[in-house]
């Protein structure tokens, strides 16, 4: 039961077969680890080369504001108006982009999203609409529209944008121009039409990326704008990449994806996570707990007993058990073939 180890401390724990093991004092066999690694390297290299030759890898072209507004000008305009009036997904997202009240996800009082606050501020009206439009030169009508908009009261702006938002759902595209049924939009119609043309020319992509500096590596602004529309998500849906299609595990086309994300994405398919506004936080909380459990399996009674109960080990070590049975009971006492002296022991830990 108890034992005194090298440090003179008495350990009084009983032997637990799921936690402890009698160390091996039996036979050793020659085993060339370096050779094994080199063989493994060659095998993997050949396998990977073969897979690459046969299947290659996917590379679907990215969406641009240009390609989006060219393919779906109405969807672009519908998104643009929500960016202007602050009702888009990004505008109402909350931290880390802006401080929309009540938008941060939470579990009870626990809301790390709110605690960390706004770190990547985005003002959708000025960043996505007004700012880019102001960079366009030689547009007297547009300049006048922008002045009228900035001079108007917030109530007036809300009336214009609300009216436009209703009508833009019926927008069409002809003669290279967005065509929206006439209505009391004030300057908003001109602004959105100009923005759509700007996007179709490719100038908006550049404006959003280099709004602060020449060298851009942060694509947050254009990506969030694109993601506010339905164009990107429709393409993703067709490729089975949506969250509710177990999309996290998938890859474009017929390529294998990330099968190891199966448990993470599973929770998004089941209630209450699949419909809760704090579903993301809930799923992350679950996964953090499960990951911790996996790491701590050695400490968890019951869970750590599954290997012994399942008896899969009897297949793995069947040769060892046969050898033991042939030799008689006792854990590997005495090799039955001459082997070189085992690795020299070091002083007890």
């Amino acid at each position, binding site marked *: 039961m108890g034992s005194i180890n090298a440090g003179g401390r008495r350990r009084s724990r009983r032997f637990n077969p799921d936690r402890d093991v009698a160390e091996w004092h039996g*036979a050793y*066999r*020659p*085993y060339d680890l370096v050779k094994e690694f080199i063989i493994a390297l060659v095998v993997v290299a050949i396998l990977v080369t073969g897979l690459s*030759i*046969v*299947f*290659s890898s*996917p*590379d*679907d*072209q990215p969406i641009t504001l240009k390609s989006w507004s060219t393919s779906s000008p109405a969807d672009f305009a519908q998104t643009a108006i929500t960016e202007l009036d602050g009702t888009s997904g990004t505008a109402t997202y909350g931290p880390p982009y802006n401080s929309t009240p009540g938008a941060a996800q939470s579990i009870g009082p626990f809301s790390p999203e709110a605690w960390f606050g706004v770190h990547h501020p985005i003002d959708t009206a000025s960043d996505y609409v007004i700012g880019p439009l102001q960079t366009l030169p030689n547009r007297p009508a547009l300049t006048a529209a922008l002045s009228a908009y900035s001079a108007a009261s917030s109530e007036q702006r809300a009336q214009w944008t609300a009216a436009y938002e209703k009508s833009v759902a019926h927008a069409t595209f002809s003669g290279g121009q967005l065509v929206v049924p006439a209505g009391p939009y004030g300057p908003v119609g001109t602004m959105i039409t100009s923005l759509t043309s700007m996007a179709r020319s490719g100038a908006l992509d550049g404006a959003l990326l280099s709004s602060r500096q020449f060298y851009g590596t942060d694509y947050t602004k254009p990506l969030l704008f694109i993601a506010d529309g339905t164009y990107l998500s429709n393409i993703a849906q*067709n*490729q*089975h990449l949506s969250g509710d*299609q*177990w999309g996290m*595990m*998938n*890859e*474009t*086309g*017929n*390529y*294998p*994806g990330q*099968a190891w994300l*199966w448990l993470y994405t599973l929770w998004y*398919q*089941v209630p209450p996570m699949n419909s809760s506004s704090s579903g993301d936080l809930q799923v992350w909380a679950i996964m953090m707990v499960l990951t911790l459990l996996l790491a701590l399996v050695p400490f968890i009674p019951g869970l750590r007993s599954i290997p012994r109960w399942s008896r*899969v080990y009897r*297949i*793995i070590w069947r*040769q060892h058990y046969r050898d033991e049975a042939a030799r008689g009971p006792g854990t590997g006492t005495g090799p*039955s*073939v001459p082997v070189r002296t085992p690795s020299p022991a070091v002083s007890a830990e």
Partner: protein
Amino acid sequence: MQGILGSLVDLNHPGHYIHWGFIQLSVANLVVIALMVLVFMVALVVPFRRHGGGER
């Protein structure tokens, strides 16, 4: 352009998916997972003969 130069099998066509209850799985992922289970079982079962080592 989608770069499929040099691939013998073009996997860039729309994926095939299995729907089983609430589970949706791509055929590609299903193949990978099935292979993993198969390889695991085969590894357990196939005898491991050490060349030159050990009595039998």
